[in-house]
């Protein structure tokens, strides 16, 4: 169990005296206080949180996190947040609010564009530091400032025209409106545009003869390449290969390029001296609050990026009703998020499952044919609760989930299959630890334990575990091949994985209450392939 907290201040939240939302040097009224997209720091209460990576690999959360974070600049920050289970419902709601606001596709697109542009600004400023020639450095700097201005203004527009309900985005929008109206920002925008316009007008010619280079103004000489193309135009047969070599900028301009640029600057002295002044005046244009917003935004964007293609493939996500007051949990049309990612990328269908616990029900005992999706169901159950506790939207059309104090996962260990006794012992030791640490507010997910022993042993030990689980009143998923465990009392719900009746080899991943059964009929196969009269008729008239 790797409980722990990170040293990242944003993960700890609550930074008294951190960047204020107020633009410098304006007399505008103070904007509502924005501090964080992740935690409501205005409430004064510290959020309850614990970082838990113990179930990451069994639940395939590690795969999910790895794909969510990808190669993003803030990947470590995002990963830490994704493993950080929240213990207070208010922070879960605080994040749900932001996610709900981001359901607005046009707002999300603008915010995404903002994030992309900001990342470009940072990479430009990084380039500037590496460059040797003054005029080139100034060019990159001007470009960075221009992207920044566009990004900030577009975001301010986007936020002010969107309907915002989240506390976090409303506060930030108020801050941004003030910032964009400030004199500092306005002059940055105006100066940037003037400098760019002036430079964009410049056209020049170079003539290369041996080692000599003449640099002059351009005087409308005709394009010779066009003349050649025109001559051979009558043979044109549609698209052909592009033989142009891809010449773009080369980082760190060489001395010949620099010499040419120097002569261009002499041909156009006004444009270049104005550029010098501009760079001195706006040396520190990036606002710290904008920067923090953009960093925390990555948590939301990364997760939405992950679930976007799944939604496009027809899968639903919902904001679970997270509660610590009731164990009557349910989820509709839910699925394993890691498996869904893989299947969608392969264009394969995803089977969704429902589950529901009512009244005294606490434990799902999942049995049934192998390869039927039992483990997948257990994983999905665990993932669902973990991600709900992080404040993310979860897989399904609707869900009520329990805000647990700890999530325990016990999956079979694959290693050391020769030492049966050792493995059984190890299983027992691990389970005892879980059962000792679990409280009635915990969630326990167990998969195929005691497979290293005889059926009667497994039956005996399984019963013992179940009795303890029942006594703990803990929410539990128990995957087993021991059928008897499914009927140990009113708190136990029996679920079975199912098979396709006409094709027993096919995996369904469907887990339902009750027994499976089916018969092979030719017409059922025809039905499966959609080639019965009715289905064919519909398909052919489509």
């Amino acid at each position, binding site marked *: 169990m790797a409980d722990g907290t990170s040293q990242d201040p944003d993960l700890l939240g609550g930074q008294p005296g951190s960047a204020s939302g107020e633009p410098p040097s304006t007399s505008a009224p103070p904007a509502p206080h924005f501090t964080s997209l992740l935690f409501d720091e205005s409430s004064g209460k510290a959020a309850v949180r614990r970082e838990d990576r113990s179930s990451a690999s069994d639940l395939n959360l590690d795969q999910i996190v790895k794909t969510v974070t990808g190669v993003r600049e803030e990947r470590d920050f995002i990963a830490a947040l994704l493993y950080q289970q929240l213990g207070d419902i208010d922070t879960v709601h605080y994040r749900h609010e932001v996610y709900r606001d981001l359901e607005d596709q046009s707002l999300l697109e603008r915010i995404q564009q903002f994030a992309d542009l900001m990342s470009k600004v940072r990479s430009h400023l990084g380039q500037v530091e590496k460059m040797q020639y003054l005029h080139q450095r100034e060019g990159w700097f001007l470009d960075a400032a221009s992207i920044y201005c566009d990004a900030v203004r577009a975001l301010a527009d986007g936020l002010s025209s969107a309907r915002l309900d989240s506390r976090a985005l409303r506060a930030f929008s108020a801050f941004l409106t003030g910032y964009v109206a400030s004199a500092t920002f306005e002059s940055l925008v105006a100066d940037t545009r003037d400098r760019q316009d002036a430079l964009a007008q410049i056209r*020049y*010619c170079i003539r290369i003869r041996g080692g000599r280079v003449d640099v002059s103004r351009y005087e409308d000489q005709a394009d010779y390449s066009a003349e050649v193309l025109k001559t051979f135009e009558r043979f044109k*047969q549609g698209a052909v290969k592009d033989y142009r070599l891809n010449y773009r900028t080369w980082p760190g301009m060489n001395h010949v390029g620099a010499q040419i640029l120097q002569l261009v600057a002499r041909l156009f002295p006004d444009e270049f001296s104005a550029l010098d002044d501009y760079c001195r005046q706006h040396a520190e244009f990036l606002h710290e609050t904008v920067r923090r917003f953009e960093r925390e935004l990555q948590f939301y964007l990364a997760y939405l990026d992950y679930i976007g293609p799944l939604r496009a493939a027809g899968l639903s996500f919902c904001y679970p009703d997270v509660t610590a007051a009731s164990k009557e949990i349910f989820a509709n049309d839910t699925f394993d998020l890691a498996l869904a990612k893989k299947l969608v990328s392969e264009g394969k269908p995803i089977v969704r499952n429902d589950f529901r616990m009512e009244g005294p029900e606490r434990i799902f005992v999942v049995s049934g044919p192998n390869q039927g999706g039992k483990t997948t169901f257990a994983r999905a159950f665990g993932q669902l609760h973990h991600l709900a506790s992080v404040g993310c939207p979860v897989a399904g059309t609707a869900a009520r989930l329990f805000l647990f104090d700890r999530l325990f996962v016990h999956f079979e260990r694959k290693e050391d299959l020769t030492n049966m006794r050792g493995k059984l012992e190890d299983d027992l030791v691990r389970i005892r630890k879980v059962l000792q640490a679990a409280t009635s507010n915990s969630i326990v997910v167990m998969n195929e334990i005691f497979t290293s022993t005889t059926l009667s042993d497994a039956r005996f030990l399984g019963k013992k575990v179940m009795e303890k689980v029942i006594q703990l009143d803990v929410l539990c998923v128990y995957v087993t091949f021991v059928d008897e465990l499914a009927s140990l009392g009113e708190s136990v719900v029996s679920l079975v994985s199912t098979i396709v009746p006409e094709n027993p080899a096919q995996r369904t991943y469907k887990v339902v209450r009750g027994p499976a059964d089916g018969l092979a009929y030719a017409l059922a196969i025809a039905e499966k392939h*959609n080639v019965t009269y009715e289905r064919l008729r519909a398909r052919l008239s489509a």
Partner: protein
Amino acid sequence: MKAYLLHQEQDFNFVADLPPNHDDLIQDLELTTLLEAMALGDKFLYEVSARVVLASLGDPEAILYRQRVLADCIAEPEIIREMYAIAVGALEDKRGIWGYGSQSPSLILSAAVRQLEAAVIRLKQLRKIADDRAERFHSAGLTTLFRTLQRELDDEYFMTMGYHLKQLRFRNGELLSAELDRDNSGIGFVLRSSGSVKRNWKERLGMGSRSSYSFTIPPRDDAGANALSDLTSRGINLVANAAAQSADHIWSYFTMLRGELGFYVSCLNLCNRLAVKEVPISFPAPSSWSQRVLSFSGLRDICLALRAEQRVVGNDIEANGKSLIIITGANSGGKSTFLRSVGLAQLMMQCGMFVAAEAYSARVCGGVFTHFIREEDSTMTSGRLDEELSRMSSIADQIRSHCLMLFNESFAATNEREGSEIGRQVVRALLEAEITVFFVTHQFDFANGFHSQRAESTLFLRAERQSEGQRRYKLAVAEPLPTSFGEDVYYQLGGWLDSDEDPDSPSGSAREASASNLDTSGRVRQAE
């Protein structure tokens, strides 16, 4: 400049996706035999023929356009083969010239100039054929081709090309224009027509700002020299591209000419083979779908005719107005052969070819689809039905109204009652979608079900057993009979179950191995 020999006003798309069911068509109709006879061992012709044959035309006029070109080709095969040789030669010239693998625009430019010079020689050869032989051709496709060659490639144009090919070797320095990129480095280098740079009057009088500054890199500055040559490269980047693309355009003209002529050359090859075998050919009469025409006489399975040592018998059918043709009857009675001959003739007609028949009239369909029993299918019955229905399902994804669907012993992987029920449902849905269906079947329940409906639009054909069990391979209009003749064939072959060779073989009566038609008949005849 275009070849336009396969379509009146467009290039044939040789890289278009083949119809999704092309593998089934090739396998079920044994198209490989046809294509090999067209290609005569030439891989390129094989590929061209496959693409043209599989990409059916949908319009009777478009079919007639190709038929007329093909008729011209059959009348003047030598000239067509000579033009084809020029196109092939041009593309061989191209391969002989060092190509564009280089990362330097100046190397790209000089290779492009050499390629253009070679191409000009081949273009002159084509022009000469046009000047000398054009009047022997009458089809719209070929007369337009010759007229275009004479108009577009006149003597003046050959002179202009020669001028530019000299200019493009230019070595008097380059004049480039440029703009400032966002980082102030140069971009947008464009090579300019190199006139002398004039100073304006103010400058000449020493007034105003100068419009030109210079520097010279020191002789030992290798990095500087490299940077300059890099700049030059940027400058001629576009013109090198222009020249190389122009060369490519000319090669694509030759490529298109080679491909389109290649199809007709392939048809000429096939024509020769069929003449040797004395197989009758004729140009089919295509009509629009609404005409409900299907009749032919002496129709052969062209692939069987190409392989067989003996002459092959043709079938005569009049099926005008019929949308369901059910074929029943004796094993090895030529049912599969008949079914293939229909599919092949339809495909050949719709790509503009002649067909192996004395006469053939049919409506133009939206596509030919085949669902043939597969001998190599797994032996597990449930798995096989699953596979058959899965193939049916992918056909349903593709097939639409006005298509032609050929079934050969389909849905026989389960018992007759179930198989017939599936067959009936499938066929009913297809007929309602205005799809013409040919169905070869042993399933009496299925065939009789349709027979008892006495529909005007259904035709029943039967493979007849001749006296003494000898097959004529000719089908007759006749209602289905409740038994098959598998036993009969079995005894003719001498009963392999009595030998200890193959005790687990599937019962011969139920299967008509598509490839064994010929062997069986051969053996039967030798035995007599």
